[in-house]
Protein backbone atom coordinates (compact mmCIF):
# COMPACT_ATOMS: atom_id res chain seq x y z
CA UNK A 1 0.00 0.00 0.00
CA UNK A 2 1.56 3.34 -1.07
CA UNK A 3 0.83 6.70 0.47
CA UNK A 4 1.99 9.93 -1.15
CA UNK A 5 2.88 12.79 1.18
CA UNK A 6 1.39 16.27 0.82
CA UNK A 7 3.55 19.42 0.98
CA UNK A 8 2.17 20.16 4.47
CA UNK A 9 3.27 16.68 5.62
CA UNK A 10 6.81 17.28 4.33
CA UNK A 11 6.71 20.56 6.31
CA UNK A 12 5.78 18.57 9.46
CA UNK A 13 8.76 16.22 8.91
CA UNK A 14 11.06 19.24 8.42
CA UNK A 15 9.70 20.68 11.69
CA UNK A 16 10.47 17.35 13.44
CA UNK A 17 14.05 17.52 12.12
CA UNK A 18 14.71 21.14 13.07
CA UNK A 19 12.82 21.77 16.31
CA UNK A 20 14.42 18.97 18.39
CA UNK A 21 17.99 19.87 17.46
CA UNK A 22 17.63 23.66 17.67
CA UNK A 23 15.58 23.28 20.91
CA UNK A 24 18.30 21.13 22.51
CA UNK A 25 20.99 23.61 21.41
CA UNK A 26 19.03 26.53 22.94
CA UNK A 27 18.53 24.60 26.22
CA UNK A 28 22.24 23.79 26.32
CA UNK A 29 23.21 27.43 25.75
CA UNK A 30 20.67 28.62 28.34
CA UNK A 31 21.84 26.14 31.01
CA UNK A 32 25.45 27.19 30.38
CA UNK A 33 24.38 30.74 31.33
CA UNK A 34 22.37 29.59 34.38
CA UNK A 35 25.20 27.47 35.77
CA UNK A 36 25.43 24.04 37.39
CA UNK A 37 22.32 22.87 39.28
CA UNK A 38 22.68 20.46 42.22
CA UNK A 39 20.32 19.04 44.85
CA UNK A 40 21.03 21.92 47.26
CA UNK A 41 20.26 24.60 44.66
CA UNK A 42 17.14 23.28 42.92
CA UNK A 43 15.70 26.81 42.98
CA UNK A 44 18.05 27.58 40.10
CA UNK A 45 15.78 25.47 37.88
CA UNK A 46 12.92 27.95 38.44
CA UNK A 47 15.27 30.86 37.75
CA UNK A 48 16.29 29.07 34.55
CA UNK A 49 12.69 29.44 33.32
CA UNK A 50 13.27 33.20 33.08
CA UNK A 51 16.17 32.69 30.69
CA UNK A 52 15.08 33.51 27.09
CA UNK A 53 17.19 30.67 25.62
CA UNK A 54 15.57 28.12 27.98
CA UNK A 55 12.07 29.45 27.24
CA UNK A 56 12.67 29.34 23.48
CA UNK A 57 14.11 25.82 23.84
CA UNK A 58 11.04 24.61 25.76
CA UNK A 59 8.68 26.13 23.15
CA UNK A 60 10.62 24.41 20.34
CA UNK A 61 10.61 21.05 22.16
CA UNK A 62 6.83 21.29 22.69
CA UNK A 63 6.61 22.02 18.95
CA UNK A 64 8.78 18.95 18.29
CA UNK A 65 6.54 16.66 20.32
CA UNK A 66 3.38 17.99 18.65
CA UNK A 67 4.81 17.63 15.13
CA UNK A 68 6.30 14.18 15.95
CA UNK A 69 2.88 12.90 17.07
CA UNK A 70 1.20 14.48 14.05
CA UNK A 71 3.70 12.68 11.77
CA UNK A 72 3.00 9.37 13.54
CA UNK A 73 -0.72 9.81 12.85
CA UNK A 74 -0.09 9.35 9.08
CA UNK A 75 3.35 7.70 8.84
CA UNK A 76 5.11 4.59 10.15
CA UNK A 77 7.39 4.77 13.17
CA UNK A 78 10.22 3.37 11.01
CA UNK A 79 9.58 6.18 8.47
CA UNK A 80 9.65 9.00 11.05
CA UNK A 81 12.65 7.64 13.05
CA UNK A 82 15.38 8.60 10.52
CA UNK A 83 13.85 12.10 10.35
CA UNK A 84 14.38 12.48 14.11
CA UNK A 85 17.95 11.18 13.72
CA UNK A 86 18.57 13.91 11.12
CA UNK A 87 18.45 16.30 14.09
CA UNK A 88 21.91 15.01 15.09
CA UNK A 89 23.19 16.06 11.66
CA UNK A 90 21.64 19.54 12.06
CA UNK A 91 23.39 19.95 15.45
CA UNK A 92 26.73 18.80 13.99
CA UNK A 93 26.42 21.17 11.02
CA UNK A 94 25.36 24.06 13.29
CA UNK A 95 28.41 23.43 15.48
CA UNK A 96 30.66 23.37 12.39
CA UNK A 97 29.36 26.38 10.46
CA UNK A 98 27.82 28.56 13.23
CA UNK A 99 30.04 27.82 16.23
CA UNK A 100 33.09 27.06 14.00
CA UNK A 101 33.90 23.85 15.90
CA UNK A 102 36.12 21.20 14.32
CA UNK A 103 34.36 18.08 13.00
CA UNK A 104 36.47 14.90 12.90
CA UNK A 105 36.41 12.41 10.02
CA UNK A 106 34.31 10.07 12.22
CA UNK A 107 31.64 12.75 12.61
CA UNK A 108 31.56 13.51 8.87
CA UNK A 109 31.17 9.73 8.29
CA UNK A 110 28.30 9.68 10.82
CA UNK A 111 26.61 12.61 9.04
CA UNK A 112 26.96 10.84 5.68
CA UNK A 113 25.44 7.60 7.06
CA UNK A 114 22.42 9.38 8.59
CA UNK A 115 21.82 11.41 5.40
CA UNK A 116 21.92 8.14 3.40
CA UNK A 117 19.47 6.56 5.87
CA UNK A 118 17.01 9.44 5.46
CA UNK A 119 17.37 9.13 1.67
CA UNK A 120 16.65 5.36 1.75
CA UNK A 121 13.46 5.76 3.79
CA UNK A 122 12.22 8.93 2.06
CA UNK A 123 12.24 7.04 -1.26
CA UNK A 124 9.72 4.48 0.07
CA UNK A 125 6.11 4.65 1.24
CA UNK A 126 5.32 6.61 4.43
CA UNK A 127 2.85 4.04 5.72
CA UNK A 128 2.87 0.29 5.30
CA UNK A 129 1.02 -2.48 7.03
CA UNK A 130 1.04 -6.24 6.84
CA UNK A 131 -2.36 -7.67 5.96
CA UNK A 132 -4.05 -8.83 9.17
CA UNK A 133 -5.78 -12.23 9.46
CA UNK A 134 -9.13 -10.44 9.12
CA UNK A 135 -7.94 -8.75 5.90
CA UNK A 136 -6.81 -12.12 4.52
CA UNK A 137 -10.24 -13.63 5.35
CA UNK A 138 -11.96 -10.80 3.46
CA UNK A 139 -9.62 -11.33 0.47
CA UNK A 140 -10.34 -15.08 0.53
CA UNK A 141 -14.10 -14.39 0.55
CA UNK A 142 -13.68 -12.00 -2.38
CA UNK A 143 -11.69 -14.59 -4.35
CA UNK A 144 -14.37 -17.22 -3.74
CA UNK A 145 -17.16 -15.13 -5.28
Amino acid at each position, binding site marked *: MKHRLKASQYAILLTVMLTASVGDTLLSRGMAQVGAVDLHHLGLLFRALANPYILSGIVLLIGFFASYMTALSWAD*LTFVMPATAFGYVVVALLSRFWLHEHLSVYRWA*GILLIVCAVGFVAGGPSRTE*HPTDADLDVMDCGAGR
Partner: protein
Amino acid sequence: MLGSETSLRAWSCILGVAALAIAGECLIAAAMRGLGDLDHLRTGPGIRGYLGPVRAVLSSPIFVAGALCMALNFFALLFTLSIVDLSLAAPATASLTYIGNAAAAKLFLREDVDRRRWLAVLFVAVGVVLLAH
Protein backbone atom coordinates in the same frame (compact mmCIF):
# COMPACT_ATOMS: atom_id res chain seq x y z
CA MET B 1 35.87 -8.67 38.86
CA LEU B 2 34.58 -5.36 40.15
CA GLY B 3 35.10 -3.94 36.67
CA SER B 4 32.94 -6.58 35.03
CA GLU B 5 30.22 -6.11 37.68
CA THR B 6 30.22 -2.35 37.06
CA SER B 7 30.13 -2.97 33.33
CA LEU B 8 27.20 -5.40 33.72
CA ARG B 9 25.33 -2.81 35.81
CA ALA B 10 26.06 -0.09 33.27
CA TRP B 11 24.85 -2.16 30.32
CA SER B 12 21.75 -3.29 32.28
CA CYS B 13 20.90 0.38 32.83
CA ILE B 14 21.51 1.21 29.15
CA LEU B 15 19.29 -1.71 28.07
CA GLY B 16 16.59 -0.62 30.56
CA VAL B 17 16.63 2.95 29.20
CA ALA B 18 16.41 1.68 25.61
CA ALA B 19 13.58 -0.77 26.50
CA LEU B 20 11.52 2.02 28.10
CA ALA B 21 12.10 4.28 25.07
CA ILE B 22 11.07 1.48 22.67
CA ALA B 23 7.92 0.71 24.71
CA GLY B 24 7.04 4.43 24.91
CA GLU B 25 7.58 5.18 21.22
CA CYS B 26 5.70 2.07 20.07
CA LEU B 27 2.74 2.79 22.37
CA ILE B 28 2.59 6.43 21.21
CA ALA B 29 2.89 5.33 17.56
CA ALA B 30 0.09 2.76 18.10
CA ALA B 31 -2.11 5.41 19.73
CA MET B 32 -1.52 7.91 16.90
CA ARG B 33 -2.13 5.23 14.25
CA GLY B 34 -5.41 4.36 16.00
CA LEU B 35 -6.53 8.00 15.95
CA GLY B 36 -5.66 8.49 12.27
CA ASP B 37 -4.71 11.76 10.55
CA LEU B 38 -5.05 14.47 13.21
CA ASP B 39 -6.14 17.00 10.56
CA HIS B 40 -9.40 15.06 10.25
CA LEU B 41 -10.09 15.48 13.98
CA ARG B 42 -9.97 19.29 13.86
CA THR B 43 -13.24 20.74 15.15
CA GLY B 44 -13.07 23.96 13.15
CA PRO B 45 -10.85 26.68 11.69
CA GLY B 46 -8.27 28.58 13.73
CA ILE B 47 -6.46 27.67 16.91
CA ARG B 48 -9.66 26.42 18.61
CA GLY B 49 -9.93 23.74 15.98
CA TYR B 50 -6.89 22.03 17.51
CA LEU B 51 -8.86 21.29 20.72
CA GLY B 52 -10.37 18.22 19.04
CA PRO B 53 -7.03 16.52 18.26
CA VAL B 54 -5.59 17.50 21.67
CA ARG B 55 -8.63 16.05 23.47
CA ALA B 56 -8.52 12.87 21.37
CA VAL B 57 -4.79 12.34 22.02
CA LEU B 58 -4.97 12.99 25.77
CA SER B 59 -7.99 10.70 26.24
CA SER B 60 -6.25 7.74 24.57
CA PRO B 61 -5.15 5.24 27.27
CA ILE B 62 -2.47 3.83 24.95
CA PHE B 63 -1.00 7.33 24.52
CA VAL B 64 -1.05 7.88 28.31
CA ALA B 65 0.76 4.54 28.83
CA GLY B 66 3.34 5.55 26.19
CA ALA B 67 3.85 8.98 27.78
CA LEU B 68 4.32 7.27 31.17
CA CYS B 69 7.01 5.02 29.66
CA MET B 70 8.75 8.09 28.16
CA ALA B 71 8.67 9.82 31.57
CA LEU B 72 10.16 6.70 33.21
CA ASN B 73 12.73 6.61 30.40
CA PHE B 74 13.77 10.19 31.26
CA PHE B 75 14.35 9.36 34.94
CA ALA B 76 16.06 6.06 34.06
CA LEU B 77 18.40 8.00 31.76
CA LEU B 78 19.20 10.44 34.57
CA PHE B 79 20.01 7.48 36.86
CA THR B 80 22.11 5.84 34.14
CA LEU B 81 24.08 9.06 33.61
CA SER B 82 25.03 8.96 37.30
CA ILE B 83 26.91 5.66 36.78
CA VAL B 84 27.81 5.70 33.05
CA ASP B 85 29.69 8.36 31.07
CA LEU B 86 27.54 10.44 28.74
CA SER B 87 29.88 9.59 25.85
CA LEU B 88 28.86 5.90 26.20
CA ALA B 89 25.28 6.23 27.48
CA ALA B 90 23.97 8.68 24.83
CA PRO B 91 25.07 6.88 21.62
CA ALA B 92 24.47 3.39 23.09
CA THR B 93 20.88 4.11 24.18
CA ALA B 94 20.12 5.99 20.94
CA SER B 95 21.47 3.19 18.71
CA LEU B 96 19.76 0.40 20.66
CA THR B 97 16.51 2.38 20.63
CA TYR B 98 16.61 2.77 16.82
CA ILE B 99 17.27 -0.94 16.26
CA GLY B 100 14.75 -2.05 18.91
CA ASN B 101 12.10 0.31 17.50
CA ALA B 102 12.44 -1.23 14.05
CA ALA B 103 12.03 -4.76 15.47
CA ALA B 104 9.09 -3.69 17.68
CA ALA B 105 7.44 -1.82 14.79
CA LYS B 106 7.59 -5.01 12.69
CA LEU B 107 6.38 -7.29 15.51
CA PHE B 108 3.75 -5.18 17.26
CA LEU B 109 2.75 -2.40 14.85
CA ARG B 110 2.82 -4.79 11.86
CA GLU B 111 4.84 -2.31 9.78
CA ASP B 112 6.45 -3.67 6.64
CA VAL B 113 10.11 -3.18 7.62
CA ASP B 114 11.75 -4.13 4.32
CA ARG B 115 15.48 -4.36 3.52
CA ARG B 116 15.62 -0.63 2.70
CA ARG B 117 14.29 0.31 6.17
CA TRP B 118 16.54 -2.17 8.00
CA LEU B 119 19.51 -0.68 6.16
CA ALA B 120 18.37 2.83 7.14
CA VAL B 121 18.06 1.79 10.80
CA LEU B 122 21.54 0.23 10.71
CA PHE B 123 23.01 3.36 9.09
CA VAL B 124 21.35 5.60 11.69
CA ALA B 125 22.58 3.41 14.58
CA VAL B 126 26.18 3.40 13.31
CA GLY B 127 25.94 7.09 12.33
CA VAL B 128 24.87 8.09 15.85
CA VAL B 129 27.83 6.16 17.33
CA LEU B 130 30.24 7.86 14.89
CA LEU B 131 28.80 11.32 15.67
CA ALA B 132 29.47 10.72 19.37
CA HIS B 133 33.12 9.86 18.64
